[in-house]
């Protein structure tokens, strides 16, 4: 055994050099496919607030020679310097490995590593910027702290310390706070009526009371293991239904409060645990890999009330799915990536299974989202807003853009600190809120507030007006 530290690290380096890596092309594809409801499925499922992480705005538009629509320039209503801070920065007390905060129920929550095996978490009022509560000394069961983080809903705050998840009352100190442990392959999915956890080892599903941790209902492995083991938990967090995706591709629709099996659906194409599922009202939309050679992907709709299911879109070789969103009642919009990073945005009528419109999207488009029939496609560096007819209504350059609410877009800088703006939809009136001095990736937004973690403190900004 070598006795020199350099020799031991050289051994570690050799081990690292043997790790199989993907190719650059795979990284590029992943970059294009990286959507907020794709690879970060669990995080997106847990964070029910708008994931307004990202960047600042350069603001501006351009004409597109290959499209009839001329995108209007957002007009600037106000000009300001630094963004207006709400209250004062809330210090962590240490320089920490930063993660972005989360927002739920009018509060912002953030967690940080405060010691070798200790995590602290605080809640602050978004309106006033005042600290509501702070808890220190959260420890996991493991002696070595590797990972931590916080997610929140109006029902509970979930602070992860390695494999231990502390479930806390968002309102503050509560003797009913409880913990659960979850492995990396397990799922922990919040619903309004219960916190649902799936054990990967056997497919067991447990639903816990938010406040006490008491088990409300359970689907035990005896009923679900074997050929029809539960592989995935999906559903609308705010809705009353939990949908379990089974190994045979069926959908079990259960009442979130009682666990009662309401219906078992056999989709028109078997559901796949690795797919992207979008709940919308009584519908569940799924976009995932195709059934066989020559079918790159397909979009399946299932009605959770009637059990009706159909395949409404199939694409062949040369295509890949970049995103799916509900874009109005009875309508879904799909972002398709072809070869050479070219994208297409397609709106499909769910009832008829027919394309309503299909138009070119921005090159390297990576995410799609909608409010009503207004569809936003973003590349991470710019974004295009399509109206209900598929015509470009707006292009925003040098910005990472997301929906702030039903009537506003939030534009943040694409890299590093920079300027924040909101844009009214429709009307396309832009309001500049000033510059934020912190890295945009550490920010979340909700309503009239933008909350950002710097390495040393939490900062809340006013983006009203």
């Amino acid at each position, binding site marked *: 055994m070598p006795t020199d530290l350099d020799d031991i690290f050289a051994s570690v380096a050799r081990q*690292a050099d043997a790790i199989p890596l993907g190719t650059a092309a795979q990284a590029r594809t992943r970059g294009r496919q990286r959507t907020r409801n794709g690879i970060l499925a669990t995080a997106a499922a847990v964070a029910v607030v708008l994931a307004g992480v990202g960047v600042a705005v350069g603001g501006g538009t351009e004409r597109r020679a290959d499209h009839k629509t001329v995108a209007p320039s957002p007009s600037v209503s106000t000009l300001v310097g630094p963004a207006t801070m709400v209250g004062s920065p809330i210090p962590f007390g240490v320089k920490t490995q930063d993660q972005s905060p989360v927002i739920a129920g009018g509060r912002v929550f953030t967690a940080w590593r405060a010691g070798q095996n200790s995590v602290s978490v605080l809640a602050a009022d978004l309106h006033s910027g005042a600290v509501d509560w702070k808890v220190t000394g959260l420890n996991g069961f493991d002696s070595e702290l590797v990972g931590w983080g916080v997610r929140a809903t109006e029902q509970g705050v979930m602070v992860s310390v390695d494999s231990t998840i502390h479930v806390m009352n968002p309102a503050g100190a509560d003797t009913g706070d409880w913990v659960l442990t979850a492995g990396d392959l397990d799922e922990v999915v919040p619903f309004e009526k219960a916190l649902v956890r799936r054990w990967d080892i056997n497919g067991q599903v447990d639903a816990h009371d938010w406040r006490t941790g008491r088990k409300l209902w359970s689907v035990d492995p005896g009923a679900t293991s074997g050929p029809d083991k539960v592989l995935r938990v999906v559903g609308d967090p705010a809705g009353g239904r939990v949908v379990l995706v089974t190994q045979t591709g069926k959908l079990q629709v259960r009442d979130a409060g009682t666990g009662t099996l309401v219906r078992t659906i056999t989709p028109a194409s078997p559901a796949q645990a690795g797919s992207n599922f979008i709940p919308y009202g009584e519908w569940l939309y799924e976009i995932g890999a195709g059934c066989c050679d020559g079918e790159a992907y397909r979009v399946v709709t299932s009605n959770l009330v009637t059990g009706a299911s159909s395949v409404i879109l199939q694409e062949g070789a040369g295509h890949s799915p970049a995103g799916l969103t509900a874009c109005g009642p009875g309508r879904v919009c799909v972002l398709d990536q072809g070869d050479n990073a070219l994208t297409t945005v397609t709106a499909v009528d769910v009832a008829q299974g027919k394309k309503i419109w299909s138009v070119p999207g921005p090159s390297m488009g990576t995410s799609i989202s909608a409010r009503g029939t207004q569809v936003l496609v973003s590349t991470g560096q710019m974004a295009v807003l399509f109206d209900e007819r598929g015509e470009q209504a707006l292009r925003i350059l040098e910005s990472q853009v997301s929906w702030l609410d039903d009537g506003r877009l939030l534009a943040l800088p694409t890299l590093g600190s920079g300027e924040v703006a909101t844009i009214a939809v429709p009307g396309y009136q832009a309001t500049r809120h000033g510059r934020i001095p912190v890295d945009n990736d550490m920010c979340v937004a909700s309503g009239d507030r933008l909350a950002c973690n710097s390495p040393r403190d939490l900062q809340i900004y006013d983006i009203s007006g």
Partner: protein
Amino acid sequence: MPMNTNGDFDDFYRDTSRRLARYAYGLTGDPGDAQDLVQEAYARAWQRWRRLADYEDREAWLRLVVNRLSADRWRRLGVRRARAAAEPPPPHTPPPSEDTVLLIRAMRTLPMAHRRALALHYLLDRSVAEIAHETGSSIGTVKSWLSRGRAGLAAALGSDAPALTTNGADDAH
């Protein structure tokens, strides 16, 4: 976007990805995590490639991404579950040597700042001055991190561990 953008990115990936994998492995001690962190960091780089092209040290930016992602427990939950559900298992990695197991285990007991400094210094051959520049810290602070990191390794490895000596490279830079 210029026609050679893909080529530029591919060249950058080819030239730097192995170093990033070393760094990610040093931080996490898990080959699967390191593999995914590398892909995710480059995926994010590709999304911002036009802006990153102007950066003086794009590798440092990648390491910053790895720093953040490696600590996000909720992300790891999602990534591992998604990987298990959607993809075949990653290719087999040769089992680590006894030295590697001991050291990686010991590294995970250290504060992140110490772990990061050790990984930069011993796995990427970065000088104390370079680490100070990248972390925005003073040379004295970096020397302290390295010194305390080595002491931490020695303590964690315990009496069964090899005696830890260095070649004095810290002072040479």
